[in-house]
């Protein structure tokens, strides 16, 4: 059943082809294309879920299909479907580029799906670039006054630089171990990590994913891209792409599990700087998406806590948090794209009166924001506490203390959003929501609450998944 092993990837390859054909039409049929793509993306999620139990190796063992990769593929498929759900009226992207928008989202998803299954350095790099190049095109696709081009160029440059770092690191790893297979590299790692070449190689190899996760010092693109990209594109970057980055960081970090004191120290420093910097700078932001960009830098720092612990519990909580972050961040972005239905950038102050304009959206917003802030009962709280727990179990007392203090810091700017949405008045008209959006709202709120209070099923799934990585 080799076909089924490669099932989700084949499906999305086919989907990309279908959308490519759609994009060739001289006069675009916007509504029809949208509904077709949405339905096919929904089917894609079902395909990814059906392939959840697959296990096996492909392409001379460069490609491993296991529970870990399949969970992230399902998450990606869900992420694509959700982003398409909120792309009903893509005001910020011209109608003749709509099909391209769907196309590059799909190829990006395809690239990321291949990424989570790659266990060989070159395959990882090729898959990473497939997903990155799609995003490099998507970011400047927005019609705008030049801010989109600035964002696109920054994204491309910093992406290219971090790819350069990554290739440099990969070459070190290859040079020291004479293999590009992770399975071979891990055998040589214990001796290697004690030497500078191994340490540098591994950390630089992770740079590509630090970039995607916007970990300090590869975070500079985040604020501009978040602000400059179309809301829906940014949603995809802020949800699906982050989850994949966590997956790959876990795969690479597993190489250093148990041996590298200096390795974890480096990661710890990056984690501390990321969360502190992200939270402090987010406080002064006025633009909602820009604030979320800095908050994503802070969240990258939290996720690293799980990576650092280098134990099953830590990896489990990192996977849980990555999935949770996908849901809660998407919830907030959904509110942004509904409130700014004309595709503009939303200032935090423009949320004024949301409780009157749309009680449902304001409920989703408050749950999403509280989840990001780590307030119970939400997946964000549970995820963060699990991360802290596993970091503490590995003896990082100071890291946990700094993380907890950061949680307090972050609350300040998250509460400013709640303040604007719940307290400030405005006389703008109510926001009408279509019924699919209403259902989406209820589903997201229920997910945030239910899996926050009863996380056991997700945790057991994540635990089973990380067994194949460690």
């Amino acid at each position, binding site marked *: 059943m080799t076909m089924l092993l490669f099932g989700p990837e084949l499906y999305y390859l086919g989907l990309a082809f279908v959308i490519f054909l759609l994009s060739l039409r001289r006069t675009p049929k916007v509504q029809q294309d949208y509904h077709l793509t949405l339905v096919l993306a929904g089917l894609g999620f079902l395909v990814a879920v059906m392939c959840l139990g697959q296990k096996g190796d492909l392409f001379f063992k460069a490609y491993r299909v296991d529970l870990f990769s399949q969970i992230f593929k399902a998450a990606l498929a869900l992420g694509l479907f959700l982003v398409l759900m909120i792309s009903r009226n893509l005001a910020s992207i011209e109608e003749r580029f709509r099909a391209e928008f769907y196309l590059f989202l799909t190829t990006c998803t395809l690239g990321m799906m291949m990424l989570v299954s790659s266990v060989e350095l070159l395959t990882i790099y090729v898959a990473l670039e497939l997903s990155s190049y799609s995003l490099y095109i998507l970011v400047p696709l927005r019609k705008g006054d030049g801010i989109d081009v600035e964002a696109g160029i920054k994204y491309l440059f910093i992406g290219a630089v971090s790819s350069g770092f990554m290739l440099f690191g990969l070459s070190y790893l290859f040079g020291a171990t004479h293999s590009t297979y992770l399975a071979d590299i891990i055998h040589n790692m214990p001796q290697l990590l004690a030497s500078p070449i191994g340490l540098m190689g591994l950390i630089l190899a992770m740079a590509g994913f630090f970039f995607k996760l916007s970990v300090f010092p590869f975070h500079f693109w985040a604020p501009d891209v978040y602000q400059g990209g179309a809301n829906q594109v940014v949603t995809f970057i802020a949800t699906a792409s982050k989850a994949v980055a966590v997956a790959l960081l876990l795969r690479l970090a597993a190489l250093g599990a148990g041996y590298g004191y200096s390795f974890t120290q480096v990661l710890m420093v990056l984690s501390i700087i990321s969360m502190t910097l992200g939270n402090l700078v987010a406080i002064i932001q006025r633009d909602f998406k820009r604030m979320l960009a800095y908050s994503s830098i802070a969240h990258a720092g939290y996720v690293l806590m799980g990576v650092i612990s280098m134990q099953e519990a830590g990896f489990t909580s990192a996977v849980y948090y990555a999935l949770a972050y996908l849901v809660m961040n998407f919830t907030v972005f959904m509110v942004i794209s509904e409130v700014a239905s004309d595709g503009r950038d939303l200032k935090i102050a423009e949320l004024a009166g949301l409780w009157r304009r749309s009680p449902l959206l304001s409920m989703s917003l408050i749950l999403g924001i*509280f989840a990001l802030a780590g307030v*119970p009962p939400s997946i964000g709280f549970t995820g963060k506490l699990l991360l802290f*727990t596993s970091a503490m179990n590995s003896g990082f*007392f100071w890291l946990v203390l700094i993380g*907890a203090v950061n949680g307090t810091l972050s609350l300040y700017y998250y*509460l400013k959003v709640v303040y604007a949405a719940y307290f400030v008045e405005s006389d703008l008209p109510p926001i009408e929501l279509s019924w699919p959006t209403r259902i989406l709202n209820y589903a997201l709120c229920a997910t945030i609450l239910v899996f926050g209070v009863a996380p*056991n099923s997700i945790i057991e799934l994540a*635990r089973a998944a990380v067994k194949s990585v460690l």
Partner: protein
Amino acid sequence: MTEHMASFPVLSCMLLAPVAGILILLFLKEEQGFLVRMVALVSAGISFALAIYTFVGYDKTLGGLQFVEKYPWVKAFGITYFVGVEGMNAPLLLLTGIVIFTGVLTMWELKERVREYFIFQLALVTGVFGVFMSYDMFFFFLFYEIAVVPMYILILIWGSTRKIYAAMKLTLYLMAGSGLIIPGILMLYSSSGLFTFNMLQLHGVAFAPWIQKIAFVFLFLGFGVLAAVWPFHTWSPVGHVAAPTAVSMLHAGVLMKLGSFAILRVAMYLCPAGFQYWAQFMGLLAAVGIVYGVFVGLAQTDLKYVIGYSSVSHMGIVGLGLATGTIDGLNGAVFQMFAHGVMTALFFSAVGYIYDRTHTRDILQLGGMSKIMPVASAFFITAALCGAGVPGMASFWAELLVLVSAVKVFPIRGLLAIASLVIGALFALRVVQNSFFNDPNPKFAHFEDVTPFLALPRMILIGFMIFFGLFPQVMLALIKSSIVPFIQGM
């Protein structure tokens, strides 16, 4: 501690009644005002009734933990859903029931965004119930945060007097406290080597003294913020003043007790050696708080600030009782949590009624309210008498127990506390005289007195206050049944 399983999930029902209320409210419309209030009242009423049931139904002779429910929740991290009742939390569950039930009745006249108000208030109270009944640290902390965060919105939207500032200050202070609690809890979790959040199991672990000393500081300071331990109390008077009436009632009445209860339940229970080491320090902070609260209160002219600072002082008594580490001290401290809760709720409830009509809380402006609103004034005066520690009221016994044992353990601090309480009594009487027995302010002459329906919640509060003032043994015997094994286990 022996555990007696519940035949019927009383505690889960108590916890879920407000949640069910919230779910129903989500699907109601703002226009259905009466229905909204009824749903809130019924769900609060169910919790109240169940709280009375557990209070009365707890078998003192059997002792131990009763009405226990225990389900494994997250195996990978050793999290259990574990709730139960014993002598020291039964009174606090009852207190929560009383305050939420009377709180809903007090807010009956609310006009603005009623549905949302009750949703957030019920969310808050779910958290409070959860903290008092949880014996698993994960759930304890989860509920603790649930109880804290809705305060921000409640104060922000329905509050008064510098509410934006007060709401943010309060939330950030309390969350900073949480920032200390997390490392404290997790330190105990990971150094136990058991990988469990179950407090009873963690109690069985003999932690190294240095771990206990460090963890105790984190937990004491973290929870101490919510208990308004001096010098971390500054959010509390500001927050009380800004909050709407029922939220002040819940907040001063119940929420601050979460802090002191958590110090008892988590910090002292799990780190006895840490407590022995820091007891002097705790006693010192508590004594300073008592004196400070009284003297700063003297200078206030806003009735709510007066109550706010008296709360700091009364919570100092709780802290002093805990610091003694004796049976009588802890007994009195828990009793004081209950007594002060009912008393403050009555205070705020009475002030809220007057403020809703006169729109002032200035002592000098109010003048002779007793001639205009005799019943509303009587409620306030009763609370003031209770606050001054008049015999026949619940807090008399509580303060007596605490002060007697405090004088034995810390003679100077105890005497200082007694002295400042005398001044406090003097000052309570001055407030009462100025705002209720001076010349009536003609501006307020046309206001009506409390109607029987609105008097009901205040009467319930007075009823409990006097009942436990006359029959303190009911409460003390119950608390003692768990304090004695608690001290022996330390």
